[in-house]
């Protein structure tokens, strides 16, 4: 799917919103084609970190580096998939996907071909003309994924893409995500609260501490994505280990005021 091979690194990243320090001295590296999952208690700066990764927020300390080869057909190297889908309600499914290609130099025919291709890949071909309001949450997120894949990204930045969905849809989409990410071979940074998602998708699971977020531990999972199931004993053991790491912080974060 992608010819890009991009390494993404954060070097000494720190950030504060006013007097509220949310990140402190974060160093991370996502190797080409690797899936990095960020987990941690509420308010630890996971989403802030993702915004910094993609250049949507300038860090107050440190820097973000992107090295490697970006394929010539890549139209947007750092591409987000949003928790709330961020679909334009006044555009059809195909229109939402096509939106991100319209500023490119692609011909109308090539644009249409790409839209058709990603809609087929995400199982949305029959819904090309539907309005977002006519779709279920799961289908809307598929549109979000189709839109992201349409630009042939070098890096996918996914901000809790399944958290707005019901448990059944989440389970189904999780397996599809794993398959799509594995097939695309694209460097991915995935933020989640859900530890099952983390162990299902992550090759590198980064555990962040309570605010200000610092890297507490990095857990590596060397199994390929294709053969993983969330019920696998080794993955369940890792999940328990992750929970043990964040449980106390999560309990403290839950009782913390955020108006400081």
């Amino acid at each position: 799917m992608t010819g890009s091979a991009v390494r993404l690194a954060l070097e000494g990243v720190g950030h504060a919103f006013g007097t509220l320090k949310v990140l402190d001295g974060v160093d991370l590296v996502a190797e080409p084609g690797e899936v990095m999952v960020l987990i941690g208690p509420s308010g630890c700066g996971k989403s802030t970190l993702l915004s910094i990764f993609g250049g949507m927020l300038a860090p107050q300390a440190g820097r973000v580096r992107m090295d490697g080869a970006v394929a010539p057909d890549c139209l947007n190297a750092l591409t987000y998939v949003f928790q709330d889908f961020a679909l334009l309600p006044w555009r059809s499914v195909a229109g939402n996907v096509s939106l991100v290609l319209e500023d490119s130099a692609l011909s109308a025919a090539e644009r249409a071909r790409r839209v058709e291709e990603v809609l087929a890949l995400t199982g949305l071909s029959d819904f090309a003309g539907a309005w977002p309001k006519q779709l279920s949450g799961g289908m809307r997120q598929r549109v979000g994924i189709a839109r992201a894949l349409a630009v042939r990204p070098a890096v996918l930045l996914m901000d809790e893409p399944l958290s707005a969905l019901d448990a059944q849809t989440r389970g189904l989409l999780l397996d599809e995500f794993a398959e799509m990410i594995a097939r695309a071979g694209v460097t991915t940074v995935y933020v989640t609260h859900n530890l099952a998602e983390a162990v299902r998708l992550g090759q590198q699971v980064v555990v962040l501490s309570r605010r200000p977020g610092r890297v507490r531990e990095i857990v590596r999972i060397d199994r390929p994505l294709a053969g993983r199931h969330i019920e696998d004993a080794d993955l369940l053991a890792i999940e328990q280990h992750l929970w043990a790491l964040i449980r106390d912080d999560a309990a403290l974060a839950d009782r913390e005021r955020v108006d400081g």
Partner: protein
Amino acid sequence: MAEVPFRGGGFAPRDIPAASVGTLVGLVLLWQAGASLHWISTKFLPAPWDIARALYALAASGELWVHLSASLQRLAIGWAVGTVAGLVVGLVVGLFTLARSPGMAVVSALFPIPKIALVPLFIIWFGIGEGSKVITLAFGVFFPTVINTVAGVDGVPRNLIRMGQSFGLGWWSIVRKIVLPGALPAILSGFRITTSTAIILLVAAEMIGAEKGIGAFVLAAGNLYDTDNLLAGIVLLSTIGLVLSWVIGRMEKLLLSWR
């Protein structure tokens, strides 16, 4: 064991188009009956039938079209000028930090001024001709359009704009494909207010300094105690309002079918 009472009713009003038409027709019939039965003095409030006859006579003599076309022309030009200017200023104020505070300060200071009070001033500035009338209308339409456009731009979900930025869309693309369509519902709802405002100001401007136009016609009829023609003029104004409201409704259905 008592049956659990239903408590979830109400708070869900629906539109019943037949009820709208029925109410209007019913009121006119009641009015006509009151006049025919001499419960209402037709000297002060002519019967609907008399108004209809006055309208027919005006149409047959050609006088109706002279006044109507003069008014519609002023309405169209004044509303269009005010709307275009209001949209441009509203977008600039809504999109740029540098324009926001100064723009809103000026709008907030000038918006509450009754525009009818400015008609004599506009006549002094632009003369008794068409210029002062068009400017009066445009001025009245401009401020609500600015306010609704700014509110519309402010109401566009930030996540959609961030999505556009994250996909590398250009500034103009984001404005054209995200901000404008997102602000459209507020802009169109503003059109309902500005068309009514424009009709009020049209009549005021025509009453102060015009020979032709529905406002001038109504004023002349009033001076002659010609209540049939006076009411005929008012019916015309009401009809213009209804037609414009219908047109805006159609525009909303067409442009906001995604809602």
